[in-house]
C-alpha cells in the first residue's frame, strides 16, 4: 500500500489545492462558543444514578477486609462493589497493550529478553493498593452527595506496606516490591545500538561529556475531568458508554475485554472531548465499572472525577531518569552517544510508548555514527504513567540539547556552530540513524537559520545589556529536535457521496480539539474537487465507526488523509466504470480532472454528485444513498517531524524569578493542511513544554509517599500572564511516505521546549557558575541553583 502511494505522491504535489493550505476557521467552533458542546458530563439519562470511588489513602497497602455494611444502609445508596465482587462476577482485566508494536518500533523486552510482566489491571483490586488514589471500592447512590457520604463510611482494613516512589530507589537491592512476580521491580530492560562500535568511539574520543537529567513526572490536566456514563439495555444485552477519549474504537475493544463480553455488545460514544494530551488515550477502570454497575442495578450510572481525583488517578506523564554521554573529537565532530533511560511506569504498565519512542531518538537531529541506549523501566507505588504530549521525545531531546550546550561551553565551541557542524543535512535525507531508524525528510539547517533570524540571535548582546541595566539578566537558548510519528497502523474511512450534493466521511480517529471536522473536510474536498462546505466528517460512535486507531503519536491527519486518498482513488475507478457504462464507451475514453469525469474528445461529462444520482437511480429499490466506498489501510512507515526553537528569558538572580521574553518555534510538520489550526497546535505545544520546564511537577512527599500536587493551587500549569506571545514559522518539507506529504503538528514544539528554556536560563546564569538546573526551574530552584553554584 505504502509503496503504491509513494509512486503517486509527485502527481499530488503538483496538483492545485484550493482549500488545503488555507487558514480556514473551524466549523466546530460555533457549537463550542455558544455553549452547545457535547462533552461527556453534558449527557444525562432518565433514572441516572451516581458512582463515587473509594480511593486508597496509602501508596502501598494490603487490603485485608472491606466492611461496607454501614455504608450500604445509608440514604440513597444502591450498591457498593469491591474487587471481590468483580472477581465473583467473572470480570476480566483491562488489557492496555502497552508495548509499542508497529513494525518500526524497537522491541522492548523484560530483563533477559522475555515477555514483559505488565501488572494486571483489574477494575478493582483484590490484593493490594499500589498507589495513592487507586480505586478500592465503588459506591453507587441516587445522588452525588449521598454517594460521597456513603464512601466515607466504607471501612477498608488496610495494612500499610513499605512504599517506593522514585525509580532510582525502586531498582536498589532491598527496595519494596510492587509485584511479587517482579521482585526487583525492573520490568523492562533492553539495549539497542552497537555496543562495540560505541565503546570504540568513546575510547578514541578527544572529549567525553557526561550528564544526568531527571525528567520529572507531570500530569496532563485536560480541563475536562474524565467522566463516564454507562447504560445497559436488558432487551438487547448491549452496553452504551459515553466517555471522552482519543478514539472510541480502541476503548470499545478494551472495555469489552475487561467486562468479558463480546465487543459488538458495547457501544462507545465520544463527541466533544475537553482536552487529552495522552491521558485519555487509555481505558480507565471507571469506564468498565459504570457499565457493569448499570447492568447490575438496572439504571444508568455516571461517574465524574473531581479535579483532585484527576490529580491522583489520571495516568501521568514523563518521569524518566536519563544519564547520557557524548563523545566528540578535537574539532567538535560528534563521534558517539550513550544513554541509560530509566522509566518510572508506576504501579502497573499502562504504556511503554514513552520509553520505546524515546530510545531510538536519543541522537536527535545529529549525525552521530555510533550509539547505544539502555531502555529500562521500574514499577513504583505511584500512579501509572502514559504517553503525554510528545511521548518520550522531550525527555531524550532535553538530555541531548542540554549536553550539547554543556559540551560547547566546556570545550569552547559556539553552541550554534557546534550544532550546525553536526546536524544531519538535507542532502543526507533519508537518513538512517545509529539505531537503524530512517528519518524520511527534512531540512534541519534551514529551520535553524529561520529561527536564528526570527529570534534576532545576533542582536542579543545589545538586549542583554539593556536588561542588565534593569538589574536582571537575559539568557538565550537554542534547541533542535526531531521526533517520530508512528501510532496505531490501521485506519478506515467510509465515504458516501449523495445525490443531494453532500459527502459524508466516517473516520475512526477522534479529535480532542484538533479540528478534524474542518481539516479532514478540506482534504476530502480538494481530493474530490468539490467545495469543503459539502463535506461532513462523522466520528465518535462505535455503532457507526467500525475501525480506527485514534489520535495519538501525531497520527490522525497522516492516517486520515491517506485513508481518504485511498478511498477516493478506489471510488474514481468505480465512477469511471459507471460513466463508461452509462455512455456506452470504454473506460479508457474517460478522463478525470478537477472533480469531473469527461469523455475524451466528446462533450459529455459528469461530476461526482451527478454520478451519485445515477448510482442511486440504478439501485432502484435498493441502496439509494449514492456512491459509497469503504477503505482500510495499514501504514507502518513512521515520519519524523522536526524543527527547532530559540528563546530568551529574563532572570532575577535575587528572587530566582524567570520570565520568557521571546520564544521562536520553527517546525517542519510536512504539508500544512490548515495553518490556523497547526499554528494553534504549535502554541499549545510550546506551553506544554514551558509548563514542564518552569513550574509543573507531580511531587511526592519523601517522608510519607503522599502526592502533594493535588489541585491547581499546588500544581503550576501555565497561566495567561506567564506566557509570551510566540513567533512561529513553518519549514514545510512534505514527507515522501504518504500522498498528502503530512508529518505531524502538535507534538514537536513540546519536544524542543524543555531544553531551549533550560538552556536559556543556564545561559543567563553561567558566569555565576551555574551549569545545569533541574526541572521545574521554579524561582526557588533557580535561586537554590545560584546559591549552590556559589558554594
Amino acid at each position, binding site marked *: 500500500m505504502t509503496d503504491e502511494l509513494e509512486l503517486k505522491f509527485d502527481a499530488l504535489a503538483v496538483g492545485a489545492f484550493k482549500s488545503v493550505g488555507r487558514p480556514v*476557521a473551524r466549523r466546530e467552533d*460555533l457549537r463550542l462558543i455558544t455553549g452547545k458542546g457535547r462533552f461527556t458530563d453534558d449527557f444525562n439519562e432518565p433514572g441516572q444514578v451516581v458512582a463515587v470511588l473509594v480511593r486508597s489513602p496509602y501508596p502501598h497497602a494490603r487490603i485485608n477486609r472491606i466492611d461496607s455494611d454501614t455504608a450500604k444502609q445509608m440514604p440513597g445508596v444502591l450498591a457498593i462493589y469491591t474487587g471481590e465482587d468483580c472477581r465473583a462476577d467473572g470480570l476480566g482485566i483491562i488489557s492496555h497493550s502497552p508495548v509499542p508494536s508497529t513494525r518500526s518500533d524497537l522491541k522492548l523486552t523484560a530483563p533477559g529478553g522475555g515477555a514483559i510482566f505488565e501488572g494486571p489491571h483489574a477494575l478493582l483490586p483484590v490484593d493490594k493498593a499500589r498507589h495513592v488514589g487507586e480505586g478500592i471500592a465503588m459506591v453507587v447512590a441516587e445522588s452525588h452527595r449521598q454517594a460521597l457520604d456513603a464512601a466515607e463510611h466504607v471501612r477498608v482494613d488496610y495494612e500499610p506496606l513499605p512504599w517506593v516512589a522514585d525509580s532510582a530507589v525502586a531498582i536498589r537491592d532491598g527496595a519494596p516490591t510492587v509485584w511479587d512476580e517482579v521482585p526487583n521491580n525492573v520490568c523492562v530492560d533492553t539495549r539497542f545500538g552497537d555496543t562495540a562500535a560505541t565503546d570504540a568511539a568513546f575510547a578514541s574520543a578527544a572529549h567525553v561529556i557526561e550528564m544526568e537529567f531527571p525528567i520529572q513526572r507531570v500530569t496532563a*490536566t485536560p480541563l475536562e475531568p474524565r467522566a463516564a456514563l454507562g447504560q445497559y439495555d436488558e432487551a438487547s444485552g448491549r452496553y452504551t458508554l459515553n466517555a471522552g477519549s482519543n478514539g472510541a474504537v480502541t476503548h470499545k475493544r478494551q472495555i469489552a475485554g475487561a467486562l468479558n463480553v463480546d465487543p459488538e455488545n458495547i457501544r462507545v460514544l465520544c463527541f466533544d472531548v475537553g482536552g487529552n494530551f495522552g491521558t485519555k488515550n487509555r481505558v480507565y477502570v471507571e469506564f468498565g465499572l459504570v457499565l457493569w454497575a448499570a447492568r447490575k442495578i438496572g439504571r444508568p450510572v455516571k461517574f465524574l472525577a473531581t479535579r483532585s481525583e484527576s490529580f491522583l488517578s489520571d495516568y501521568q506523564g514523563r518521569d524518566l531518569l536519563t544519564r547520557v554521554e557524548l563523545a566528540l573529537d578535537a574539532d567538535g565532530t560528534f563521534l558517539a552517544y550513550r544513554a541509560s533511560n530509566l522509566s518510572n511506569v508506576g504501579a502497573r504498565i499502562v504504556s511503554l510508548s514513552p520509553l520505546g519512542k524515546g530510545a531510538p531518538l536519543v541522537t536527535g537531529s545529529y549525525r552521530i555514527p555510533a550509539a547505544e541506549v539502555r531502555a529500562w523501566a521500574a514499577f513504583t507505588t505511584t500512579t501509572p504513567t502514559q504517553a503525554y504530549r510528545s511521548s518520550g521525545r522531550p525527555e531524550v531531546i532535553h538530555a541531548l540539547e542540554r549536553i550539547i550546550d554543556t559540551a560547547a561551553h566546556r570545550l569552547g565551541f559556539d553552541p550554534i556552530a557546534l550544532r550546525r557542524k553536526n546536524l544531519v543535512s538535507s542532502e543526507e535525507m533519508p537518513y538512517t540513524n545509529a539505531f537503524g531508524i530512517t528519518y524520511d525528510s527534512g531540512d534541519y539547517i534551514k529551520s535553524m537559520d529561520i529561527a536564528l533570524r526570527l529570534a534576532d540571535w545576533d542582536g542579543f548582546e545589545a538586549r542583554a545589556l539593556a536588561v542588565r541595566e534593569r538589574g536582571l539578566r537575559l539568557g538565550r537558548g537554542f534547541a533542535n529536535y526531531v521526533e517520530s510519528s508512528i501510532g496505531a497502523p490501521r485506519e478506515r474511512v467510509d465515504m458516501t457521496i449523495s445525490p443531494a450534493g453532500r459527502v459524508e466521511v466516517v473516520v475512526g480517529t477522534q479529535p480532542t480539539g484538533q479540528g478534524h471536522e474542518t481539516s479532514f473536510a478540506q482534504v476530502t474536498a480538494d481530493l474530490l474537487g468539490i467545495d469543503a462546505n459539502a463535506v461532513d466528517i462523522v466520528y465518535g460512535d462505535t455503532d457507526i465507526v467500525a475501525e480506527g486507531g485514534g489520535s495519538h503519536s501525531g497520527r490522525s491527519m497522516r492516517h486520515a488523509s491517506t485513508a481518504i486518498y485511498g478511498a477516493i482513488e478506489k471510488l474514481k475507478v468505480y465512477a469511471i466504470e459507471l460513466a463508461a457504462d452509462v455512455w456506452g464507451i470504454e473506460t479508457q475514453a474517460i478522463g478525470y480532472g478537477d472533480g469531473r469525469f469527461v469523455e475524451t474528445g466528446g462533450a459529455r461529462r459528469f461530476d461526482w454528485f451527478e454520478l451519485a444520482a445515477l448510482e442511486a437511480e440504478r439501485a432502484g429499490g435498493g441502496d439509494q444513498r449514492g456512491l459509497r466506498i469503504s477503505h482500510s489501510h495499514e501504514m507502518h512507515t513512521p515520519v519524523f517531524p522536526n524543527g527547532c526553537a530559540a528563546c530568551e528569558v529574563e532572570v532575577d538572580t535575587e528572587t530566582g524569578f524567570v520570565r520568557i521574553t521571546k520564544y521562536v518555534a520553527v517546525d517542519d510538520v510536512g504539508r500544512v493542511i490548515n495553518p490556523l489550526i497547526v499554528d494553534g497546535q504549535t502554541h*499549545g505545544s510550546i506551553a506544554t513544554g514551558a509548563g514542564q520546564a518552569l513550574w509543573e511537577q507531580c511531587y511526592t512527599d519523601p517522608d510519607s509517599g503522599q502526592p502533594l500536587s493535588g489541585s491547581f493551587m499546588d500544581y503550576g500549569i*501555565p497561566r495567561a500572564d506567564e506566557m509570551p506571545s510566540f513567533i512561529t514559522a513553518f519549514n514545510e518539507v512534505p514527507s515522501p511516505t504518504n500522498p498528502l506529504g503530512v508529518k505531524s503538528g502538535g507534538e514537536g514544539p513540546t519536544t524542543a521546549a524543555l531544553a531551549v528554556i533550560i538552556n536559556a536560563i543556564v545561559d543567563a546564569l553561567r558566569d555565576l557558575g551555574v551549569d545545569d538546573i533541574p526541572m521545574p526551574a521554579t524561582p526557588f530552584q533557580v535561586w537554590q541553583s545560584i546559591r549552590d553554584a556559589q558554594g
Partner: protein
Amino acid sequence: MIPLQLKVNGEPVAAEIEPATLLVELLRDQLGLTGTHVGCDTSQCGCCVVHVDGVALKSCTLLAISAQGSDVVTIEGLATGATLHPMQKAFHECHALQCGYCTPGMIMSAVALLERNPDPNEAEVREGLEGNLCRCTGYHNIVRAVLAAAAEMRGG
C-alpha cells in the same frame, strides 16, 4: 428545598433547590445549561465563569441561593439571536479555542474584562485572564481574540 427566583439569560426562572446547591449545579443540572463547565474544585480554572448582575463570577463557588433575584447571563445567553457577540466572533476568527472546554468561561471573563477596560494592552489582557486556565492554546490566540474584539467593540 427552598424557592429561588432569578433571571437567567433574560428569562425569569423559578426553581426549588437544596440549600447547598451551587449556582453551576443549578445551571447545569436543573436548567440544562451545560455550556457552563466545571474544570476544578478550587476556584482556579474559570471554566464556570458566568455574569451575575454584570459581574464575572465563578459559579462553582457561589451558592445558587445567593443569586436570588439576580440577573445571570451564561454563555448560552451571550449571542443576540443568531448574531454572535463580538467576543464569540473573535474567538472563532482568531482560532482562540481548541477543545472548547475552557472557552465558555474564558469568553465570559473576557467580555467582563472589556467592560472594565475597553482598550487593554496585551499585558492587561493576560493579567485579566489569569483566573482562567487553558491547556490547549498557550493563550496566544485567546489574547489575539480579546484584542481583536476590543478593537471591534470600540469601533462599533
